[in-house]
């Protein structure tokens, strides 16, 4: 069974169709790249799949649950890292982990071992008790990702996780993504960086709310006869009628 199955999903805001009749499947353990220009509808589509926004019509299952009727069940099986930094700046690293772990129903023992593991893994053991406010951006993003994974979800949604981050941290970040995928987590990621698209198992490209291309990076490069993903993207992006918002 697929981790995510989407059929004709549409979202309208008044007369504006943000997401226009999209269909795709995401396999288990896959790293699925979700590309598109600003305003193409990526974030809206992702917010629908996370149960943050009601679809106007269409069908979808996430982690085997129906998106319309079982959104709260879906939430137990997914992790989400939003574009906006969403840890509490006035809490310490440890407190943030404890908070989100607790909300997902982890026991004190689980939280403790999770915290130790995560801090060590991120190399943040020393800073466990510093306020998140004082962390540099790169660390914050890695911490956000770890926190989104705290309950070992089946699927994790990442909305432009590496925006504004330096190249070294980006590489480290992708190492973390690979590790998660190896461990069996399905990764659904949106990004602006075309080199990152190359790291994905499969990639979809949205233009004006539609999915105009879908396949492995190699397939897409062949299909659009481009040497790299950036070339593919540029060719598709020229079709766009919507401007940036």
């Amino acid at each position, binding site marked *: 069974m697929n981790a995510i199955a989407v059929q004709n999903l549409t979202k309208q805001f008044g007369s504006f169709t943000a997401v226009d009749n999209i269909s795709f499947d995401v396999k288990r353990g896959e790293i699925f790249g979700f590309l598109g220009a600003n305003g193409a509808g990526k974030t809206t589509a992702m917010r629908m799949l996370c149960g*943050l926004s009601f679809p106007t019509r269409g069908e979808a299952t996430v982690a085997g649950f129906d998106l319309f009727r079982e959104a709260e069940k879906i939430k137990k099986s997914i992790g989400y890292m*939003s574009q906006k930094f969403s840890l509490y700046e006035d809490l310490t690293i440890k407190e943030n982990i404890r908070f989100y772990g607790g*909300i997902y129903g982890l026991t004190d023992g689980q939280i403790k071992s999770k915290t130790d593991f995560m801090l060590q893994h991120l190399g943040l053991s020393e800073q466990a008790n510093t306020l998140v406010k004082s962390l540099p951006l790169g660390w914050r993003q890695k911490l956000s990702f770890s926190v989104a994974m705290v309950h070992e979800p089946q699927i994790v949604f990442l909305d432009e996780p590496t925006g504004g981050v330096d190249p070294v941290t980006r590489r480290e970040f992708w190492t973390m993504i690979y590790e998660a995928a190896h461990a069996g987590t399905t990764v659904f990621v949106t990004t602006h960086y075309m080199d990152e698209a190359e790291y994905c198992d499969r990639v979809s490209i949205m233009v004006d709310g539609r999915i105009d291309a879908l396949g492995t990076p190699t397939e897409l490069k062949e299909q659009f006869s481009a040497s790299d993903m950036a070339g593919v993207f540029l060719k598709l992006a020229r079709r766009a009628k919507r401007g940036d918002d």
Partner: protein
Amino acid sequence: MRVLKILLEKEFRQVFRNPAILRIIFMMPAIQLLIMPLAADYEVKNVKLCVVDFDRSAYSRELVNKITATSYFQLVDYTDSYNKALTYVENDQADLVLQIPAKFERQLIKEDKATLFMALNAINGVKANLGSAYLRTIIGDFNREVRTEWLQLPRFNSQPVIEVTPINWFNPYMNYRIFMVPGILVILVTMVGAFLSALNIVKEKEVGTIEQINVTPIKKYQFILGKLIPFWVLGLIILTIGLAISYLVYGIAPLGNIFTIYFFAGVYLLAVLGLGLLVSTVSATQQQAMLLSFFMMMIFILLGGLYTSIDSMPAWAQAFTKVNPVAYFIDVMRMVVLKGSTLWDIRFHLLTVFGFAIVLNSLAVWSYRKRS
């Protein structure tokens, strides 16, 4: 249960790490309870009087002496120019002008009748009313003295006299502060509760952390309870500080059981916090939430019977006080503190406010959307 515990842990940590909130908790009670009762003194005293005496007779001087002998009036000037007196009134230096016409004494004795003129600055109606009533009483007394001086006493004793003696219950010394302080305590608890809770969820919206919460399987009621309980505790802490200040500074100790106050306050805070949370679920920015709760609080407080009695409000305003939680708490506070009312005496208040709490919190849970 465990989720709730985790939520509460987080909220309390944030509250105690926020200097602005801590400042409110400790400064609000201090400022409001120390300054407001001193400032909010409605008691009418120190009526500033200007006497224009065209007569300058023994009687007129006697009358003026009699008036100034009371602590009620403060003689601004004793003059013979009416215009000068009016200037005093224009500059707010005098509230009341008493004019004694020329030949006042002669008329009174020769013609059995004389007239005094009073002009009063009626912009402040209460002061004008009470001041002039009091001045008339003094003139009446003076009149009686004059009469007894000229007539034989027995003729008057034969008239039946009804003596009216007022007895002031609950506040025998007519202390205005005992009246104001419990009311101000209510305002304090209300403002802190409503503002803090209203701003809280909106802040999470503005910062964006609410998204992260919304993708978790947390239940709506858990989230709302997690927001409600910390401010409920804060409200009771503020109430405690307020009660302590009113005891230490003003010597006001509740006549009734202090637990009656806490019990009611507990229920009341649920209602107020529910309102605050409702505001924050419908507002997008802190500015909006602030303005909206300010607007409502202003109406609730003004129509809550703190400054003016609800009995004298027009029907529509009285009807409104039926759905105004602030009015119930002010009433209960005064009843328990000054009259020693028991839980049984305030049962209707309690039930009504409990009803508000249920309705408002259900609305807050209902209007909080995890999904847009």
